[in-house]
C-alpha cells in the first residue's frame, strides 16, 4: 500500500518537479540540459506508472470474481488520498487519486507517448532560444494531464482539465512574436472556456443533487436520479468534452492550434489533451449509460464532426492542418463509439490513435525540420529518398490510420464500425465513409510529400537520432498496438476490454452477439474499399510534379469544403459580429451616455461635498469641542431613548 501511494504521488509529482526546476533555472540550464531533465522526469514518471500497472493486478481480481459481472469487483480501484483539500460544511473534497484500469491506461499513454515526444523535442527544439521555457511548459502539461486522468473526484479532474487548457494556450502561442499564433492561442483558450462552463455547471448540478463529487460516490447515487436530471448533467459534461476534444461546434480551434511547435501538436493536440473529453465520458459512463438522449447527442455530434472534418482534410495543403482535421475526425469517431455505448472501443481507439497520430505528427515535424520550416505539401515531394526513416515510419503511421490489417488502426476502427453496424447499417456506411475519406487524405498527404518529384527549394536532410528514435518506437507501437485488444474472431480475447471493464461500469454492457460471418464480411468489405481508395489516391497524387491550384480556383462545392464549410465565417457572422455590434452599442450608449456622466458627476459631487465639509475643519479647537459634545449628547440620547 505504501509503495502504491508513493508511486501514485510520484507519477504526477515528477513532471511537476521538472516543470518547477526548469522554470526556476531556465537561465542556468544551457543547451540540452533542460530537455534532458524534462525528459528524465517524464520517463521516470512512465516507469512509476508501469510499476503501478504491474502492481495493480486487477485482471486476476476480475477472474476471481468471475467475468462479466454487472459491476466492477471490489479491489479493482484503489484510492490514494494525499490530503483533505476542501472541507466546507457538508462538502468534503479530498485531494485524491483513483488508481484503476482506466486511469492506469491513460497514465501509461500520457507518460509513455509523453516520454517519446519529450525525447523528440530535444532534437526538434534544439535551436530555439526559449527551449527551457518550452520544456517547463510541456512538463507542466504532463503534470496537469496526469492530474486530469488520476483524479478521484470531479474537482481534481477539473484542476487538471484547466491546467492542460492553460498549458495548451501557452504552448500554442509559444512563438508569441507572431500575432497570428497569439490569435490561435486565444481562440483555443476561449473555445475551451465555453466548454469549461458546461463542465463546471455539470459539476454544480452533480454536487447539488448528490452532495458529493467523488466519482465512486456519485456513481453509487446515479441510479436514484431521474432520467431528465441525468440527461441534463450528462449534456453539460458533454459540452465540456466538446470543448476539450474539439467537436462540432467548437472544433475550429484545433486546426488553428497547429501554430504551436510540432511536438506540442503531437502530444497535446493529438495524443493526450484532446482525448480528455473521451476520458471524461468513459469515466462517467455510469451516468451516460443512464441517459439515452445524451448518448444519441454524443453519437450524432461525433458522426457529423467526423464527416465534416474528414471532408475538409481532403482539401488542406498544410501538412499539420491535414493531420489536425484528421485528429478531429478521429475524435469524432471515438464519440460515435461512446454514443453507441462502446466505451472500451473508444478507449482502444484513443490508445491506438495516440500511437499513430503522435507518429504522424512527429513524422510531419521531422519533414518540416528537414525542409527548414516548410509546411505546404504542395512544395514537397520526392522525400522518400532523402529522409528514409521518416518516410518508412510515416508510411506505417498512414497505413495504421487508414486501417490496413493487421496494423493497430484496423482493429480499433473496426471495433467502432462493428458497433455502428449493430445499431444500423446506415451508421456503418457513414463511419465507413469517414474512414475512406481518412484513408484518401492521408494517402494524398503521403504521396504529395514523399512521392513524385521535389517541388520546393530548401535543401532536405534527415533528422537526428533523438527525433527518429521516437518515430521508430511509435511505428512499432502502431504496428503491434492491435494486440492490446485483439478481437475474438482472430483468436484474441479482447484483453483491453476485459481490463477496462474493471474500471467503468458501462463496459460490461457491451456484448456483441454478431455472428462471425458478418464480422468477417464487414472487415473484408472495409479492407477492399480502403485498398481501392489508396489506388485512387496513388493515381491522382503520386506522380504529381506541378502545384495544386489555390482554393479560389476550385469548383464551387470543393471550394466550399476547402473553405472549411465556411464555418469560421459562419461563427463570425453569427457570434462575433453581433457581439461586436452589442459591444459597440453598449459602448456608445451605455458607456458614453450613461456610465461616464454618472462617474463624472459622482466625482464632481464628491469634490463639492468635500469642499463643503472642509469648512468644518476650521482649526478652531472650541468648535471641535463643541462638535464633540453634541456628538456625545446625540450618542447618549440614541442609546438611552432610541433603544
Amino acid at each position, binding site marked *: 500500500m505504501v509503495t502504491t501511494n508513493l508511486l501514485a504521488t510520484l507519477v504526477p509529482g515528477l513532471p511537476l518537479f521538472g516543470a518547477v526546476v526548469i522554470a526556476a533555472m531556465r537561465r542556468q540550464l544551457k543547451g540540452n540540459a533542460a530537455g534532458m531533465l524534462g525528459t528524465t522526469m517524464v520517463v521516470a514518471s512512465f516507469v512509476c506508472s508501469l510499476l503501478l500497472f504491474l502492481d495493480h493486478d486487477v485482471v486476476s481480481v476480475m477472474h476471481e470474481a468471475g467475468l462479466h459481472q454487472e459491476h466492477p469487483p471490489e479491489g479493482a480501484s484503489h484510492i490514494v488520498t494525499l490530503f483533505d483539500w476542501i472541507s466546507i460544511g457538508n462538502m468534503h473534497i479530498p485531494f485524491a487519486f483513483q488508481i484503476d484500469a482506466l486511469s492506469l491506461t491513460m497514465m501509461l499513454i500520457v507518460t509513455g507517448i509523453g516520454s517519446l515526444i519529450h525525447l523528440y523535442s530535444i532534437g526538434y527544439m534544439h535551436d530555439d532560444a526559449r527551449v527551457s521555457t518550452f520544456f517547463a511548459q510541456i512538463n507542466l502539461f504532463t503534470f496537469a494531464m496526469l492530474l486530469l486522468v488520476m483524479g478521484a473526484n470531479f474537482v481534481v479532474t477539473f484542476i487538471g482539465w484547466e491546467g492542460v487548457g492553460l498549458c495548451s494556450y501557452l504552448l500554442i502561442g509559444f512563438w508569441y512574436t507572431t500575432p497570428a499564433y497569439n490569435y490561435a492561442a486565444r481562440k483555443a483558450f476561449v473555445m475551451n472556456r465555453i466548454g469549461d462552463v458546461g463542465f463546471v455547471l455539470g459539476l454544480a448540478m452533480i454536487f447539488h443533487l448528490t452532495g458529493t463529487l467523488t466519482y465512486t460516490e456519485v456513481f453509487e447515487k446515479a441510479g436514484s436520479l431521474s432520467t431528465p436530471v441525468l440527461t441534463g448533467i450528462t449534456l453539460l459534461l458533454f459540452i465540456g468534452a466538446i470543448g476539450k476534444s474539439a467537436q462540432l461546434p467548437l472544433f475550429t480551434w484545433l486546426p488553428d492550434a497547429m501554430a504551436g511547435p510540432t511536438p506540442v501538436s503531437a502530444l497535446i493536440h493529438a495524443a493526450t489533451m484532446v482525448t480528455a473529453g473521451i476520458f471524461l465520458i468513459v469515466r462517467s459512463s455510469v451516468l451516460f449509460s443512464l441517459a439515452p438522449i445524451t448518448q444519441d447527442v454524443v453519437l450524432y455530434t461525433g458522426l457529423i464532426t467526423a464527416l465534416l472534418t474528414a471532408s475538409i482534410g481532403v482539401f488542406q495543403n498544410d501538412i499539420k492542418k491535414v493531420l489536425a482535421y484528421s485528429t478531429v475526425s478521429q475524435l469524432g469517431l471515438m464519440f460515435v463509439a461512446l454514443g453507441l455505448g462502446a466505451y472500451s472501443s473508444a478507449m482502444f481507439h484513443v490508445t491506438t490513435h495516440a500511437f499513430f497520430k503522435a507518429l504522424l505528427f512527429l513524422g510531419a515535424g521531422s519533414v518540416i525540420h528537414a525542409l527548414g520550416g516548410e509546411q505546404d505539401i504542395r512544395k514537397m515531394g520526392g522525400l522518400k529518398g532523402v529522409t528514409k526513416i521518416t518516410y518508412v515510419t510515416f508510411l506505417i503511421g498512414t497505413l495504421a490510420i487508414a486501417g490496413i490489417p493487421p496494423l493497430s488502426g484496423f482493429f480499433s476502427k473496426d471495433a467502432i464500425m462493428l458497433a455502428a453496424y449493430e445499431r444500423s447499417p446506415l451508421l456503418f456506411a457513414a463511419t465507413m465513409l469517414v474512414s475512406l475519406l481518412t484513408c484518401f487524405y492521408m494517402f494524398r498527404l503521403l504521396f504529395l510529400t514523399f512521392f513524385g518529384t521535389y517541388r520546393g527549394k530548401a535543401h532536405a536532410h534527415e533528422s537526428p537520432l533523438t527525433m527518429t528514435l521516437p518515430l521508430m518506437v511509435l511505428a512499432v507501437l502502431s504496428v503491434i498496438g492491435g494486440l492490446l485488444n485483439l478481437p475474438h474472431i482472430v483468436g484474441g480475447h479482447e484483453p483491453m476490454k476485459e481490463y477496462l471493464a474493471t474500471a467503468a461500469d458501462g463496459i460490461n454492457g457491451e456484448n456483441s452477439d454478431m455472428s462471425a460471418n458478418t464480422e468477417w464480411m464487414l472487415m473484408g468489405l472495409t479492407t477492399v474499399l480502403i485498398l481501392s481508395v489508396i489506388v485512387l489516391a496513388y493515381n491522382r497524387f503520386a506522380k504529381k510534379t506541378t502545384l495544386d491550384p489555390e482554393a479560389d480556383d476550385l469548383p464551387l462545392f470543393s471550394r466550399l469544403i476547402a473553405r472549411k464549410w465556411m464555418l469560421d465565417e459562419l461563427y463570425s457572422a453569427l457570434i462575433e459580429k453581433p457581439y461586436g455590434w452589442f459591444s459597440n452599442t453598449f459602448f456608445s450608449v451605455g458607456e458614453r451616455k450613461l456610465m461616464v456622466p454618472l462617474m463624472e458627476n459622482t466625482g464632481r459631487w464628491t469634490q463639492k461635498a468635500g469642499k463643503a465639509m472642509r469648512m468644518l475643519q*476650521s*482649526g*478652531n*479647537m*472650541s468648535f471641535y*469641542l*463643541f462638535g464633540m*459634545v453634541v456628538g456625545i449628547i446625540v450618542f447618549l440620547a440614541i442609546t438611552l431613548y432610541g433603544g
Partner: protein
Amino acid sequence: MDGIITAIRVVPLLDYVVLSFILFSIGMAGVMFRRNTIIILMCLELMFNSVNLLLAAFSAYHSDPGGQVFVFFIMLVAAAEVTVGLAILVMMKRNVDSVDINQLNRLKW
C-alpha cells in the same frame, strides 16, 4: 470618627451621582465657554474630579477599595497631564504670545 462612619450611607447614592453629573457638565461647559487655555485645563481638572468623586462614592457604597485605587491612578494621570499641558502652554505663550486657544488653529489638513 465613629460619627462620620455611621453617617455614611445616610445620603442616598443618587445624590452623589447627580452632584458629579452637575460638576462634570459645568466643567464641560467651561471648556467650551472659555478661550483661555489655562482655564480650559482647569475645567478638565474639574471634570476629572467629578469622575473621581463618583468612583469614590460607588467604592464606598459597595465596599470595594478597587474604586479608590482607581481614583488614585486617575490622580497620577491628571498630574502628568497637567505637567505636559502647562509646558505646552508656556511654549505657546512664548511662540505666539497668547494663551488664546483659537490661536492654535493650524491643526487642520
